[in-house]
C-alpha cells in the first residue's frame, strides 16, 4: 500500500464535521486574544487582519483540493464544502470587524466601499461568495445539476479578488501579500490546461 493510499484511507475515516469544528476554533480564540491584550495594543486592526489572513489561507486550501487529487492522488474532495463554507465564514467575520469595530461611522462605510479601490475589490470578492455559500448544500447540487459546477467557478475570481485586496492594502513594497497572490494564481494555472491525470492503479 502506498503512502497516498494510506493517507486516503485515513482521510476516509475523518468525518467532514470534524473539520468544521477545528476550523471554527480560531474565531473565538482571536476574539479572546483581542479582548485580553494578546493581539497587542491595537486589537481592532490585529483582529481584522488575523481573520482576513486566515480566510485567505482557507481559500487557498480550497483551491488546492483539485490539484492535489489530480497531481498527487490525495483525495480531499469530501472536505471541500467545509473549507468553502468556513472561508466564507471568516471573510464575513473579517467584514463584520471592519464594519462594526473599525470604521464605525455608517456614512463612511459606503463612501469607503465606492471610493477606496482595495475595499471595492474586497467587497466584490465577498459579493461573489454569496451565491456560492447559498448553494453549498446537497439540495442545490441536485437541483442545479451541471449549472452548479458552472456557478461555482465564481470561486476563482472571488479568490483572486481576495488576493488582490491584500496586495493593494499594504504600504510600500511587501513580499507576503505577493506570495499569497502568486500561490493563488499558480493553483489556478494548474487548472488551465488539461494536465495529466493520475490513473487509478
Amino acid at each position, binding site marked *: 500500500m502506498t503512502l497516498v493510499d494510506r493517507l486516503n484511507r485515513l482521510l476516509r475515516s475523518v468525518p467532514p464535521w470534524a473539520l468544521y469544528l477545528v476550523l471554527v476554533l480560531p474565531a473565538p480564540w482571536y476574539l479572546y486574544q483581542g*479582548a485580553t491584550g494578546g493581539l*497587542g495594543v*491595537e486589537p481592532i486592526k490585529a483582529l481584522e487582519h488575523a481573520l482576513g489572513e486566515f480566510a485567505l489561507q482557507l481559500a487557498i486550501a480550497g483551491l488546492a483540493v483539485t490539484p492535489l487529487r489530480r497531481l498527487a492522488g490525495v483525495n480531499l474532495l469530501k472536505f471541500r464544502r467545509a473549507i468553502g463554507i468556513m472561508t466564507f465564514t471568516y471573510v464575513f467575520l473579517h467584514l463584520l470587524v471592519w464594519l462594526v469595530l473599525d470604521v464605525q461611522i455608517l456614512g463612511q462605510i459606503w463612501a469607503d466601499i465606492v*471610493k*477606496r479601490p482595495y475595499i471595492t475589490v474586497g467587497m466584490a470578492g465577498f459579493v461573489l461568495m454569496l451565491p456560492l455559500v447559498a448553494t453549498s448544500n446537497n439540495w442545490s447540487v441536485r437541483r442545479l445539476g451541471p449549472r452548479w459546477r458552472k456557478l461555482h467557478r465564481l470561486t476563482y475570481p472571488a479568490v483572486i479578488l481576495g488576493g488582490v485586496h491584500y496586495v493593494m492594502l499594504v*504600504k*510600500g*513594497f*511587501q*513580499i507576503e501579500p505577493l506570495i499569497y497572490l502568486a500561490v493563488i494564481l499558480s493553483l489556478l494555472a494548474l487548472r488551465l490546461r488539461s494536465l495529466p491525470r493520475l490513473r487509478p492503479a
Partner: protein
Amino acid sequence: MAKRWTNKLTRSDVTPEPIFMNRRKVLAGLGLGGGAAGLGGLALGGMPGAAMAQDDMALEPNAWDEITSYCNYYEFGTRKDDPSQNAHLLTTEPWSITIDGLVDKPGDYALGDIVSQMTIEERIYRFRCVEAWSMVVPWNGFELADLLDMVGVKPEAQYVAFETVYRPEEMPGTRYPVLDWPYVEGLRLDEARNPLTLMATGLYGKPMPNQNGAPIRLVVPWKYGFKSIKSIVRITLTDKQPPTSWNKAGPGEYGFYSNVNPEVDHPRWSQASERKIGGGLFAKKVPTLMFNGYEDEVAALYDGMDLKANF
C-alpha cells in the same frame, strides 16, 4: 535663539490618576442615563477647554508599553511588533551625526557633544500616524532650531534633509526592498525652525528605546508620523527640496508636506478621524484635528498655500 514654544500640555495638565479614574466613573455613569448629563458637565467643567474640544482623553499620555510595542520602523520589519522584537540589534553607541551642506560648521558631531550643548525638555505631543491611529507621547528632547543655530545655517539654505542609519546587518527589515533604503526625510527650513520641531532623545524621561528611533529622532507633531524620521545619522542643509522616502515609494499617496489634515484623504483611506491607541477592542474613533491640533502654532507657515495640492 529660536522663539521658544510654550508647552500647553505639561505634567500638571495631566489629570491626577484618582481624579481621572473618578472621571471615568462619571463618564461610565453618563452612558447609563441621560439624566446624569448635568452632573457630567459639572465634573468636567474644570478641564482645560481647548483640548476638551477634541477628546477628553487627549491629555492622557499613552502608556510606555503602548508607545514601545506598537511601532512603524520598517528597517526592523513591517509588522507593528517587529521593531520591539528586532531593534535591540541596533548599536547606538557610539553615535555621531554628520551635519553638512549649507552650514558654517560642517562635520561629524558626536551625539554626546551635541546633547551637552542643548536644553533637554519634556514635550507632551499628540502623534498622528498616516494610518489613522494616534498616541500622546511624552518626549524628551531639544529644539531642532537650537542645533541649527549651533552649526550655523547659511542664508541660501531653504531645506533640511535627514537620513536614518542604514546597517543591513543590524536591520533585518532592510533585506526586503519595502522602501528605497536608507530612509530619508526633509523639512522646509521654516518648518525645521518652528519651536514645535523637536530632536527627541528620550521618552518618559528615559533614553529613547531603539524601536522608537534611538538614539535621536525627529518629532514634527503637526505632520504624519512618517515625517518624524528615526535614528538620524545625517542632517544636510540644502537649497533644493530633498527627496523623502514615502514620497518616492508612492508620490500620489505621500506628499513632501504631509501635514495632518482631516480634509485631505489618503487615496486609500479617510483621514477625517483617528483611533487613539489603548482603547481596546471597542475603542471609538475621534475626529482628526487640522495640523493635529497645532493649528495656532503652525498654520501661518502655510499661508496662501493650497493644502490639497501640497499634501
